[in-house]
């Protein structure tokens, strides 16, 4: 009897697992390409130390401005460094920085947005006041100011981006929480004696998590772009750190002489941002609650 029950549970668990994969298989081809590109970048980033043919920061003035060839796949820069190696290490910088900014923004905005949306009243008015004020500044310009005040470094850039970035999410999450808390299943839970924390953890967060994930994916591209942009302006990663924005800036004076200096980092940024955007679009399609059935 017991064994039979156990088998049944195992079967149901397997079904759940299959459901997850069938879920994933509904993703459209374009988004799959996005996902593949992202995984590609991530794997290359992780394996960078083993893959790079040359030291990314070693200067060799005898080999300046070499065009792409068998030894230097993407050529060399004005200090004779291998562009390909620098590009691979740049994946680490860009993705990890963007990821940290995203995690920080998510955590802060989920806490702030849920609190404001769920409890409402004075807390909500205060939070929405702060959010509206912050949203009145263009995000990138505000980040520029903060990064400028803190001094140029990758850490400070991350702080600047995170500080400006949680605001938009918090507002969206607040709205989602406000609409979910009016659902009857919240009342039913309260009728069972559920407290606020239980309702938030069991009934509200699981219902906002998938739209938030979609938002995060769509936003990852934007954050990567901001990091490269601000680094390009000299406010983020500092030379000789291999970072795509820094590489673009370093290559700028030699654009006509050695176009590969800008072409490859530019392509890398373009590809990864595009990949995150199309993946985000695809996720939005499958997580749309109306299609869950």
């Amino acid at each position: 009897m017991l064994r039979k029950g156990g088998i049944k549970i195992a079967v149901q668990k397997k079904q759940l697992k299959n459901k997850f994969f069938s879920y994933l298989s509904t993703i459209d081809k374009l988004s799959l390409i996005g996902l593949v590109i992202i995984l590609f970048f991530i794997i290359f980033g992780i394996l960078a130390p083993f893959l790079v043919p040359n030291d990314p920061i070693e200067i060799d003035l005898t080999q300046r401005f070499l065009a792409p060839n068998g030894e230097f796949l993407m050529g060399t820069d004005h200090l004779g460094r291998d562009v390909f190696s620098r590009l691979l290490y740049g994946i680490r910088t860009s993705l990890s920085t963007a990821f940290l900014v995203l995690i920080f923004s998510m955590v802060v905005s989920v806490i702030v947005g849920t609190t404001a949306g769920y409890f409402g009243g004075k807390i909500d008015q205060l939070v929405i006041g702060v959010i509206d004020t912050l949203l009145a500044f263009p995000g990138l310009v505000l980040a520029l100011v903060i990064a400028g005040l803190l001094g140029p470094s990758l850490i400070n850039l991350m702080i600047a981006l995170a500080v400006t970035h949680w605001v938009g999410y918090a507002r969206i999450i607040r709205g989602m929480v406000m609409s979910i808390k009016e659902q009857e299943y919240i009342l039913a839970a309260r009728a069972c004696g559920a407290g606020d924390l239980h309702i938030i953890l069991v009934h509200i967060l699981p219902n906002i998590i998938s739209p938030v994930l979609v938002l995060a994916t769509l936003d990852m591209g934007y954050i990567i772009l901001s990091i490269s942009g601000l680094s390009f302006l000299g406010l983020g990663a500092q030379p000789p750190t291999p970072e795509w924005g820094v590489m673009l800036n370093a290559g700028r004076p030699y654009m006509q002489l050695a176009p590969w200096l800008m072409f490859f980092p530019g392509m890398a940024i373009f590809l990864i941002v595009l990949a995150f955007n199309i993946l985000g679009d695809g996720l939005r399609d499958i997580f749309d609650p109306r299609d869950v059935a």
Partner: protein
Amino acid sequence: MEMCLLEVENLKKHFAVDKGLFSSSQQKVKAIDGISFTLRQGETLGLVGESGCGKSTTALTVLRLLEATTGEVKFKGQDIYKLTKKELKALRKEMQIIFQDPDASLNPRQTVGDIIGEGLKIHNLASKETREAKVKELLNRVGLKSEQFLNYPHEFSGGQRQRIGIARALALEPELIVCDEPVSSLDVSIQAQIINLMLDLQKEFGLTYLFIAHNLNLVRYVSHRVAVMYLGKLVELAAKEEIYNNPQHPYTRALLSAIPIADPTVDREKIILEGELPSPINPPLGCNFHTRCPETREICRQEEPNFINRGAEHWVACHF
């Protein structure tokens, strides 16, 4: 006489209307405006009335899922509005609710097992294994398959979902269940199944129902006593046969005359009510039904009638 399980005394719920920045007067929607009734152990009290008369607000305030403006709700003699948070939580085991829309009342991200077992978990009433066993038992009891406990609500039909809602309400073994239009969103054939299930459960567990509906035939079928509500107030309350055979309030008479009869040869007088339901922000002075009542006289415009017992526990709020 049976024991009084629930006593509602002059319960009021007013919602403030935000009129805007430049308005000084604060207007109020009087969703329920002083209603009193009792509910005896094991009986079903039907509560009928048209849309917007405050039926659902009554359901929520009686359970303190919505704070009342004033008034008392005594459950087994204890005023639930005077309880501390902790005491209220303990009391919640005894009173449950079934909602109208099973779509909105089941969390789409929870499995059926989690939905039904939630109360048991919150009150720490059972270990994981006994909880699971109990959930399966409940699923069987409401006519679903016990192996469906890992499924999600969207995998069920409307009638099955309402069964899940009923199982959730039963899980804590309550004495009182407030049913807020439990079958209004279902097909007629399914309605009958659900109603019969609810009646069976009432017999089996000795449940007391506050049954809110707008279908008068349905209310007649399930209730022992019936209360009629109009614009936030009770206008008539009596035993079922008494109210259907001898309606005293003109509004009740109008409602009853509107019940369709499945026989075209039957000829009867229909009372057509003129006009619209007045706004609960600005209810009429005097008797709040006087704007639509076919028998309005001068006193109706001046004085509000009291809710009076006219003998044999037949309560009416009318001057005549």
